């Protein structure tokens, strides 16, 4: 697949606490923006891939934007694992001749309508679980939300490796500093100190408010097609250098909670996705110029730094504090602020920022960026991609 397909268009809505419009409208706006950015019309789109969590179906979006004939559609997994998996599926659809131009999107009113942080709600006594969800082993105990599961993982990382709150705070501040200088980011112009971080209220020990991403309303979309069409794209784009997905040998069923029974709770499946990615892309972590790392929580970001080979196991904390990940460091991350401070579009925003970096149009532009890593996940499966600057 190496460099045979490319992203030639990107589009997004504003990111906010209340979009005041439907998820279909958000998806339509982001998709039309991406199609226009690619120099195409809706009639040129013949494939749509989506996140399993999206409320917008492929046919609802195709109807809304006016696609005359959809020859390919697909789902790519839940939540943050979807964005990079969408790129992989789009490449597969295109290279197998099932589609010529694929739209990948994510749309959510994640703040004003469906808040993932609210966990599982019930009007009264309610039965939960069964049918391969395994929720019956978790929800009745009050383990209700991802933010509580990641707290258990963070506590375990602290037990194993002595990781500190200050180290998690360093990651939150890196994302915030990048968002501060990114006009479309929700935390634009809003600085945060380590003192602010440490003073933020505890949500689920050891995680504080600012260890959590920014629940948001918004949508993002990209157009993927064959690399030969890059030359006709008015704003250029980026080659899809490689995609890597992975489930570890002790993968567990269910949405996420059964990962508490994985051999090592703090080794995210990114480690096995990374092997596939680096093999497919023909590059290693030392060649990555800039990275957009999935950051539903600070701890998820830290675990993926380890999984994708930027440091050894247990060394994510010292790396976070080293300065290497800052905008002026050796491997800048989450240059628009990420899920933490730009907006939680479930990692789809990470793909847009990767394309901006390789087009040279990012607010926090990294000089000479040629290769950008994007990661997704991180539970119970991992996904990742490397994009390369168009030559």
């Amino acid at each position: 697949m190496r460099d045979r397909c490319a992203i030639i268009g990107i589009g997004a809505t504003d990111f906010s606490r209340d979009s005041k419009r439907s998820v279909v409208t958000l998806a339509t706006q982001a998709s039309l923006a991406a199609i226009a950015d690619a120099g195409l019309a809706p009639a040129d789109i013949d494939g749509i891939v989506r996140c399993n969590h999206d409320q917008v179906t492929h046919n609802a979006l195709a109807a809304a934007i006016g696609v005359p004939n959809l020859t390919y559609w697909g789902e790519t997994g839940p939540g943050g694992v979807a964005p990079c998996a969408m790129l992989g599926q789009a490449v597969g659809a295109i290279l197998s001749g099932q589609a010529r131009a694929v739209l990948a999107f994510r749309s959510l009113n994640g703040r004003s309508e469906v808040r993932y942080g609210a966990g599982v709600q019930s009007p009264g006594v309610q039965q939960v679980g069964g049918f391969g969800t395994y929720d019956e082993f978790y929800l009745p105990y009050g383990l209700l939300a991802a933010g509580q599961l990641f707290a258990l993982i963070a506590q375990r990382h602290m037990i194993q490796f002595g990781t500190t709150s200050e180290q998690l705070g360093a990651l939150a501040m890196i994302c915030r500093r990048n968002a501060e200088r990114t006009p479309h980011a929700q935390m634009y112009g809003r600085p945060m100190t380590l003192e602010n971080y440490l003073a933020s209220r505890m949500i689920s020990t050891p995680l504080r408010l600012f260890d959590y991403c920014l629940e948001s309303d918004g949508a993002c979309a990209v157009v993927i097609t064959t690399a030969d069409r890059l030359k006709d794209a008015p704003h250029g784009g980026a080659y899809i250098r490689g995609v890597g997905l992975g489930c570890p040998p002790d993968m567990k069923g269910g949405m996420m909670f059964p990962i508490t029974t994985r051999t090592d709770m703090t080794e995210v499946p990114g480690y096995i996705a990374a092997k596939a990615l680096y093999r497919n892309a023909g590059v290693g972590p030392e060649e990555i110029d800039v990275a957009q790392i999935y950051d539903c929580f600070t701890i998820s970001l830290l675990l993926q730094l380890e999984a994708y080979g930027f440091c050894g196991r247990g060394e994510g904390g010292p790396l976070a504090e080293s300065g290497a990940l800052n905008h002026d460091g050796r491997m800048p991350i989450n240059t628009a602020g990420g899920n933490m401070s730009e907006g939680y579009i479930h990692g789809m925003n990470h793909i847009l920022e990767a394309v901006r970096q390789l087009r040279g149009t990012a607010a926090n532009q990294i000089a000479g960026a040629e290769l950008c890593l994007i990661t997704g996940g991180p539970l119970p499966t991992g996904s990742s991609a490397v994009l390369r600057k168009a030559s």
Partner: protein
Amino acid sequence: MGPLVPFIHDRDTAGFFEAAAGGRLVVRTCADCAASIHPPTAHCPYCGGWNTGWRTVAGTGRLHSWTTVTHQIHPAYPTPYTLVVVAVDEAPGVRLIGTLPGAPALRAEQPMRVLFETLPDGSVLPQWRVDEVGVPT
């Protein structure tokens, strides 16, 4: 708003809750390769056999991780409460969840002991408490 109670009629997992109702902690176990399987499945992913069944274990374990929840998101689960992950003795790789009241001081590898909690619908959950040395539970 009532609590969330387990669906206890799933064809793969019902045996766990049936045993809990009888005051026993059980683990799905492969009779061919002796692997413990959790969450439980009828098929053994370790040896490929179908010869799995329920095995009663002692009901002790070690504290693997925990979090004290301080931000309340469900009215039936008032904060603070502490979620624990317990590595179950005699069942390698099996870890179960429990809920401790309040915000106790805890340490990794602390001994834990099962107890059984009856929920409003009559279903029974295995729960966990710190196993204080010398204090019967």
